[in-house]
């Protein structure tokens, strides 16, 4: 299985401005979030990257990703709202090929740029199936993520077969359906925001979107259907992902890039100075 196409979604009403935000990357370069994501894909061996955008955002996104080393496509999301539909908008681009998918409102910080996507692509290529990157996540964060339930794959410490996928489960539901052997109590495998998906996913989306339900089907429900149709794995990531859309999300992502990059010492020094200069406050833990 060859994976050389990637789809980045950046069309959500509340996230469409996030890929355009500028950050200083690990090398000290001033770049947009979108450019950093495209580079992540490129370093994982992608040759073409499609960015699904809100209609009218094509040029803004194109300039944000200027200078990319791969071929870029900007696809306006059509036919309605929703994450599942955003992926489906890239159906013509992916055709009958598997593809890497990244969400446009997250940044991934691994051992080096591109390491996260590369590891995921390598696992999917080896296992010849869809693989979603996941991270062990405390139950208090369940309202923010999709989560999977499954069993460890024999002979592997970081791969799981996926039995069920639930979007933003309540802890009650998670406890009943998503407990995974080997994880600590109260921890679940939540999506990392990065997937390798086979063309079957697009077939699934074809059918569930055609049904026209209200509210529109979630991406997680499509993944649940995918799990019932074919082998589907989850890869446990030890890297960090940063949700840019939450309070201080962009700030935390910037700090993570800086502390893992060239300017680590300088930034660390400044942070310590900042801490020293801050008035002491009682913190409730």
């Amino acid at each position, binding site marked *: 299985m060859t994976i050389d196409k990637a789809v980045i979604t950046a069309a959500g009403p509340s996230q469409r401005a996030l890929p355009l935000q500028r950050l200083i990357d690990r090398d000290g370069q001033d770049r947009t979030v979108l450019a950093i994501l495209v580079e992540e894909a490129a370093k994982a061996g992608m040759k073409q990257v499609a960015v699904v955008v809100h209609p009218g955002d094509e040029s803004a996104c194109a300039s944000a990703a200027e200078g990319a080393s791969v071929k870029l496509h900007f696809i306006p999301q059509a036919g309605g709202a929703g994450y599942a539909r955003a992926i489906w908008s890239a159906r013509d681009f992916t055709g009958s090929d598997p593809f890497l998918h990244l969400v446009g409102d997250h940044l991934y910080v691994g051992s080096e740029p591109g390491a996260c996507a590369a590891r995921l692509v390598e696992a999917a290529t080896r296992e010849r199936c869809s693989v979603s990157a996941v991270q062990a996540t405390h*139950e*208090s964060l369940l*309202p923010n993520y999709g989560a999977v339930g499954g069993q460890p794959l024999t002979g592997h410490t970081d791969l799981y077969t996926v039995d069920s996928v639930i979007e933003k489960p*309540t802890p009650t*539901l*998670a*406890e009943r359906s998503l407990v995974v052997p080997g994880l600590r109590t*109260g921890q679940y495998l939540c999506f990392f925001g990065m997937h390798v998906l086979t063309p079957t996913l697009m077939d699934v989306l074809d059918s569930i979107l055609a049904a026209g339900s209200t509210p529109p089907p979630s991406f997680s429900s499509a993944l649940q259907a995918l799990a019932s149709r074919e082998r589907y794995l989850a890869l446990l990531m030890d890297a960090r992902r940063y949700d840019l859309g939450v309070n201080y999300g962009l700030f935390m992502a910037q700090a993570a890039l800086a502390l893992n990059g060239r300017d680590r010492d300088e930034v660390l020094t400044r942070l310590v100075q900042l801490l020293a200069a801050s008035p002491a406050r009682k913190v409730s833990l």
Partner: protein
Amino acid sequence: MDRLIAIITSDDEALRNTPLDRAVEGLTLDHLLQACRALDSFRRQTSNLYHRVRALFFLSSIHRYSLPRLGSVPAFGHIPFRAYTQFLDRRFEESISILLDADSADGPSEALSSALAAAYRGLAFQTLADQVRRSVRSISGNQWMFRCGHAADYPLRIRQELLHSSSGRFPILRETTPVRMDLSHSAWSDIFFLGMDYPEGARVLNISIDLAITGRGQPKPPVEAHFRVIDRPVIRLVSVDLNAHVELSAVAEVFDFAKDYLGLLKAAVIASGIVPPGMEGAPASLAPLLERLTGHPGHGIEIVSKVNDIPKGSRLAVSTNLLACLIAACMRATGQVSTLTGAMEEDDRRLVAARAILGEWLGGSGGGWQDSGGVWPGVKLIRGVQAQPADPEFGISRGCLLPRHDLLPDDRVPPAARQLLQDSLVLVHGGMAQDVGPILEMVTEKYLLRSAREWQARGEAVGILDQVLDRLAHADIRGIGSLTQRNFDAPIQTIIPWAGNHYTQLLINRARAEFGSRFWGFWMLGGMAGGGMGFLFDPEIKPQAATRIQHILSETKRELEGGVPFAMEPVVYDFRINPRGSWSELVPAAEALMPPAYYVLTAPALLRRESRSLTPAQRADLEHFGARSREGGEWAAAGATLIDHLLPETAQSKSASSSLDALLESHGFDRVQHSQIRADMKSGRIGLAQNRLPASARITNVDPGELPGIDGVHSRFVSIGQDALAQGSIAAVSLAGGAGSRWTRGAGVVKALNPFCKIAGRHRSFVEIHLAKSRKASRPYPLAIPHVFTTSYMTHRPFEASLARESSFGYQGPLLLSPGRSVGLRFIPMTRDLRFAWEETPQQVLDVQKQKVIESLRAGLIQWALAAGEGSDYRDNLPLQCLHPTGHWYELPNMLRNGVLARLLDERPSLKTLLLHNIDTLGADVDPGLLGFHLDSGAAMTVEVIPRLLDDRGGGLARVDGRIRLVEGLALPGERIEFDLSFYNSGTMWIDIDRMLAAFPLTRAQLRDQAAVDAAVRDLAARMPSYVTIKDVKKRWGRGQEDIFPVAQFEKLWGDMTALPELDCRYLSVPRLRGQQLKDVAQLDGWVRDGSAAHVASLCDWQ
């Protein structure tokens, strides 16, 4: 003994079901003691929960019944005080160890066995309760709530649909839930312990129903919950039917269950995970949690409960279904139930039911597992489930905590059967609201002991359920009526005789007499009869029957209410089977209104505020309510009621106050004495702590060898007694002026008239039993024994009415009532007395969650006493509930003051002796031997005492500064001393009339001189100590709701007469069967099982 352990552990069903009584039949004392040692060792070693529990119940039963029955165990023994305090603190293992050490050192005794029986029983129930608690926590979907301890870890979010606001208001989620009735009565097989040990026998036929009190509209789901987001960072809880509302801003307030009437709503908030149980004890504000929950700073939630006109004690599991309804609404709102509106999926129903169990445990209550059946629709068979390897219960118990619900389709319950059932059944609330907790404990114990008759009856009840199912499939409701009647008459009352009562039996008899064969049968709902009940009739006469049943209920209640505690006026319901179970609707923000009564309750406080201080949502809500109330109907009525609520209430409270004053006047209330007592109490001169004898008093035990026993009563005394009886020189006096508050928990009815037990085929009251004993004692002699019942302001009229109605129970001898001549007005207690009672004296610690509730309740009651004014008069209740009898010391002097003794002496000049006893000492009779013993001794008073057992609390016989006398428990300087006393006061005394008169001092001739009698009584009363006591008094309100308040009162007690140096008192040790008192309804079952009831019956002549 190996055989008992084999019974517990055997896989062979026949052996496992061997009744304990049969297994120990014929065993000698040594064998029984050996069996106890083996069982104790076994229960410490076995890892199987139910083996352990059954061994504990075996041990308890052997000590309580088998050993005393042998007659060879010494009656006297010393119960170590430390074992008692450990027992009260629920440290049962430690208590048992201390008692077993004492047993090894001193040898066995009935006293030690009584303590061991109680400790083993306590440990057995605690083990079972702990297991249910563990199972509730280990249910998948519940566990996360116990590890979430901080708002930062809080994982729930309100569903987006509930956050779409309009003018500051948010949508309302409205959940409605039917209640359940149990068509077969399950023989209580839905008790968790039973279901978990005997899943194959745990089955109930459970029907969800809508209700309306006849004449008040169409049946609808009886309980409702409303949930919405509000623009204040609080949890606002409102109970429309209990007229209570509160805003909670701190986590700790959510866990304070008994602070107000909103404990059920708080339990729902916790059990639904909105404030997870793991946060208990966190000293935190709710605001951060609510911000995470709603996603909006400064926002919170409001939960409103409403019970549609269904009174408490309906036996239809209203409370559990309301809890489930509230939990369902909260879980839907937070996405834990997959559907926001409409019905629920089966998995979600089970989850809600599991959370309802958790909520009941949190709230310190607890029903059976079928109680949340209203969450499911229609008719269903609920069954125990065998634990499988994947279940958390596997290896611990045979069954799972949660049962399986099978909805019965039309081929098993045809539509015609459902319709016919509705057309035949007259569903009622009989008006009684009793605590079924003791009954559930009895059922559990009898099941684990496999008592022969009860076990056979359980099998019969299981068979009846199959027959009911069969009849239902054939739409044969008449057949069902006959089965439910048979179930009530035989298995149910065989297992628990107290499930039936005189009231219910009268209702059945009267229905049968009036409707003959068209009355198809009675149907008991829930734990016991008297509250929710059903009467099945030929559908053709159901409308008339419903009307007549209402009359029969009301008439029978009026007839019995003097002696039977009713909480409310009986009602008849209209009902229909609910086809959809718990159901939810979402009302959009623009149209969202709470029920009309919500505004009547909450609007006055808002309207009294400056309008600018209202939040936008509050303002919009009031505007919307105003607009609706202009449309007429129930909204307009609510508007009018709201106006009434805005104005202070005056007329009613004035009339209650004047009625109380009139009562006080008419019963000889002594205002001067009352003011003195009040002043003394407020100043601290008298109080609970001051009741005690000075610490310098030397109080020592009277050794058992110092008193003559019943075996010392030889034939010479019998013949002296027989002569006295033949001469008509003895009268019986039963003290019945007291409230019997432990019997009815302060319900204000006459204990003496309570038909509490079926003897010789009928329910009999204390009065009837005492008269039957006097009849039998009189039978061989020409003159019947005169019998006097002393009464008080509270008991006199019901007594008169009851004796008139029952033609004095056919008693042919002189029968007199001696009305009370003194009355007291209760006080709001001093908080120091409440603290002394609750903190300084040993108190029974309850199961962990119940203890939390009671501590919260006590904190609330101390606040109540402070707010109401410590030491001030207690007037905030029905007038009769504000008065109190002034203690039984006055009851005999009252016979002097009211002329009853003089009349008696006129009628029977030969009268020389009185047998005085408490109304609850049922074994006391005019025994010729004891009478002869008393006469022969020449004493002024002979007091009967009994060997002390664990439950005999409240003083006893002691040597005080060298003189043998009775000492009240209130007067003992320390609790420990009581445990050194061998004898307990039975309250039965033989009194020489002339010598007693001399103590006043009076003569027979002076009894005609009222002034001399009054002065003599007053002078002697002044020499008697006054004890301040705390008593529980019930205050009823709403629809069957009851509050219990501790109030202070004073009393003088007859036992203190033994301290008078001029009165020659002797003491006689009598057997327990003669001297024990029935103080508490919970004693009844043991009273029957240990042979006491049969002994009493043998003393009676019912003709």
